[in-house]
């Protein structure tokens, strides 16, 4: 057995050229085959790729989808984000527990099935949803959950759980998913019909510098959330003194409430691939990487197929478009369950086969990114915009949207509204108009941009969605008038506490402390001073953290305190006059002693 394992692990390593930089591929393959990366497997991998065992352990222990201890042959991962819980994920969880006879984080005694929670899997528009190994199951309720467990117990084949197919390419032979696209509004940039290869052909007719000029003229900014000017990023990379450059697509769509990239990857992958090729031409790169989040593994075979198609169509390959010397190809790098890998330098760490720790900046990726070479990292939607800009012209693109934010934006709308799904709208649209469009007019609060964005109330619904006002990577979570914003903030903090990489102090510790105090407040133990405490703590995390995760993780708390002070007021007690706060319940602490001696304390009778 152990001989077998070693032989097989060595084979997996050899298939990856015994390349330490391909650690993610290696450990994912071992995990898939053995249900874990055991201690013995780690030793074998370390020897094969000439690294230290602890370095392998370091990677394996970082990602949620990897494990050093054996898991069941089938792992059920129920999404427990705010939206899924709004739609009944807790009832589904209860059913899974009952049917399997185990709790979350446990494996059935026969070692067959494991049950876990996972943060947003990009299915908020069809929640509650779960992953059963790589298979996505959506719109769960008690009876479907019961059915899933019984079926799995019978045949142990998650693929057979898919009894209906979703629309569009979700029904493609290589996808076969019950996922629905839910495209509610198609706009002129992403979902309009496209002329395959036209954008690339026009780009190749120009010089690379002209392509970058056009991207700048279009004033394209990153669609992932941070909004950095794309043309400027490309120019930095092109200007870097290193001919070995890389184009990386960030398809690690992990911000809870966001799922628009899922739909692009399903319906418009060629637009993305073409955009990456244009970027390759513009910055002088010959290699591209699509970093695909582990949760979207069900799209991998289809995307590999589409890459092949693009090679056949001459969008990828050698001397593309007859342009001598322009070679460009793309590989897919799978992630393994880590929100922080959506941060561009953490994503590059992961591509290099390391823990998903963000890197110190400077140097910036455009100077020294993937394997220390100049690298541009752009969002899926951004590359699609690039293709369209090349095809239809920078002017046409710049005319869409608002002056500071040209173009369209895909919004992932979920929660308390009639039509959840993806909407392609022009920048500058008022939040109120979006709510009208989606059937969420009576919303009490909207989380714009996911947990790292901000929570806004009705008095801010007239603000426009654009980079200068309500900036968003695309997530709009709609909450009804009765929602408890403090509890929603607590749930978001739970998410950040789990997803912090742990590298820097403020994010690793501070988020835990924010969550602790929110819990105190929600339990009725909050005091007026807590608001100042939360704000100071939140500002500390925001200012002192090393990467975008920590710099935004306090937003749920800070923005709800700012926009919903009454929600906090209602939960707070009157200030004690002595300035002290009880940090524990002395009556409860004495309980055990009182039980032993058989009498109650005369001082703390209650």
């Amino acid at each position: 057995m152990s001989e077998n394992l070693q032989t097989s692990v060595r084979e997996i390593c050899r298939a990856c050229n015994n390349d330490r930089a391909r650690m993610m591929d290696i450990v994912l393959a071992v995990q898939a085959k053995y249900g874990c990366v055991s201690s013995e497997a780690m030793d074998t991998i370390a020897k094969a790729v000439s690294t230290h065992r602890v370095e392998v352990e370091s990677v394996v222990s970082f990602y949620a989808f990897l494990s050093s201890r054996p898991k069941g042959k089938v792992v059920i991962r129920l999404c427990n984000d705010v939206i899924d819980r709004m739609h009944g994920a807790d009832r589904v969880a209860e059913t899974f527990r009952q049917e399997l006879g185990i709790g979350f984080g446990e494996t059935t005694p026969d070692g067959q099935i494991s049950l876990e929670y996972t943060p947003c899997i990009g299915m908020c528009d069809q929640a509650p949803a779960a992953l059963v190994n790589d298979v996505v199951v959506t719109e769960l309720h008690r009876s479907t959950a019961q059915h899933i467990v019984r079926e799995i117990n019978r045949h142990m084949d998650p693929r057979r759980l898919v009894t209906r197919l979703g629309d569009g390419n979700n029904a493609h032979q290589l996808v076969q998913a019950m996922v629905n696209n839910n495209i509610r509004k198609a706009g002129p940039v992403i979902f309009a019909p496209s002329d395959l290869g036209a954008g690339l052909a026009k780009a190749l007719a120009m010089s690379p510098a002209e392509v970058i000029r056009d991207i700048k003229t279009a004033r394209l900014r990153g669609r992932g959330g941070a909004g950095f000017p794309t043309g400027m990023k490309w120019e930095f990379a092109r200007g870097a003194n290193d001919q070995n450059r890389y184009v990386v697509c960030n398809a690690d769509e992990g911000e809870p409430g966001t799922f628009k990239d899922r739909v692009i990857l399903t319906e418009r992958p060629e637009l993305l691939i073409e955009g990456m090729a244009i970027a390759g031409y513009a910055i002088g790169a010959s290699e591209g990487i699509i970093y695909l989040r582990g949760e979207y593994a069900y799209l991998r075979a289809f995307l590999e197929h589409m890459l092949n198609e693009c090679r056949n169509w001459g969008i990828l390959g050698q001397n593309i478009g007859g342009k001598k010397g322009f070679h460009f190809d793309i590989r897919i790098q799978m992630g393994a369950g880590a929100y922080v890998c959506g941060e561009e330098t953490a994503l590059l760490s992961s591509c290099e086969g390391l823990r998903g720790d963000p890197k110190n900046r400077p140097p910036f990726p455009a100077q020294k990114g993937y394997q220390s070479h100049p690298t541009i990292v752009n969002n899926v939607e951004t590359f699609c915009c690039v293709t369209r800009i090349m095809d239809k012209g920078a002017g046409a693109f710049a005319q869409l949207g608002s002056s500071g934010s040209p173009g369209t934006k895909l919004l992932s709308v979920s929660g308390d509204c009639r039509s959840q799904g993806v909407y392609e709208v022009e920048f500058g649209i008022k939040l109120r108009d979006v709510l009208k469009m989606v059937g969420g007019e009576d919303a009490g609060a909207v989380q714009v941009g996911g947990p790292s964005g901000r929570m806004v109330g009705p008095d801010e619904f007239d603000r426009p969605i654009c980079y200068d006002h309500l900036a968003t990577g695309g997530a709009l979570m709609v909450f009804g008038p009765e929602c408890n914003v403090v509890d929603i903030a607590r749930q978001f903090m739970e998410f950040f506490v789990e997803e912090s990489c742990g590298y820097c102090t403020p994010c690793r510790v501070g988020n835990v402390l924010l969550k602790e105090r929110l819990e105190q407040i929600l339990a009725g133990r909050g005091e007026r001073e807590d608001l100042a405490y939360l704000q100071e703590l939140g500002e500390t995390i925001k200012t002192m953290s090393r990467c975008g995760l920590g710099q935004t993780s306090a937003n749920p708390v800070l923005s709800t305190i700012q926009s919903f002070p009454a929600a906090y007021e209602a939960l707070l007690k009157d200030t004690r006059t002595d300035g002290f706060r009880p940090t524990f319940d002395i009556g409860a602490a004495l309980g055990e002693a009182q039980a032993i001696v058989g009498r109650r304390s005369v001082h703390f009778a209650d």
Partner: protein
Amino acid sequence: MSETMTITIDGREIQARPGQTILEAAEAAGVYIPRLCYMKGLTPHGSCRVCTVLVNGRPQSACTQPATPGAVIENDTERLLALRRNIIEMLFVEGNHFCMFCEKSGNCELQALAYRFGIPAPMYPYLWPKREVDASHPDVMVDHNRCILCARCVRASRDLDGKNVFQFVNRNGHKRVAVNAEARLGDTDLKVTDKAVAACPVGALLKKRVGYAVPVGKRLYDHEPIGSDIAAAHKK
């Protein structure tokens, strides 16, 4: 050799060499920027965030940020001191630090920083994590209760000792230092003379049988606050 540049720290102009970080340039000019994960001779890590300064208004860790011509840096401001103090307090509540009987007391950089910042007790609630002690090695013990995840042992072992005895495992608050063996430090090739052992700023990595050897009054930080040597060295 190479040309120097002028940078401004708290209104004072100092000279920096190209390639120097803000922390290094400041130190050379006798300006102390509080730090914890930074250690001379190791690749800067930028993880503790205690050395955060404002560079042209933006927060940056001074240990990783290169000096650039004309940079205007704020270091010793009331706001930054408060933010750093918060970070130091976080480190205290995150682990289990009992200075009164810790062997490192008086020589501990975390404790010394707390004194320098005038922290009598943290305002944050203690998290009381359950952490392990590994005494399997004949000459060195690891007490994870006191570890602040600064990566000094990780870097020193890798870059100075050439051994990779230590590395981080897990993420978020569960992150911890692991050893290059199935589980125990005793099964690694660590030697008590390794630079990694001496690199620990707190009492997490300790040499055995030498605890409390230096009497109170003669320990590193018994008389002057941590960082005093930097200003003093410059005056000479």
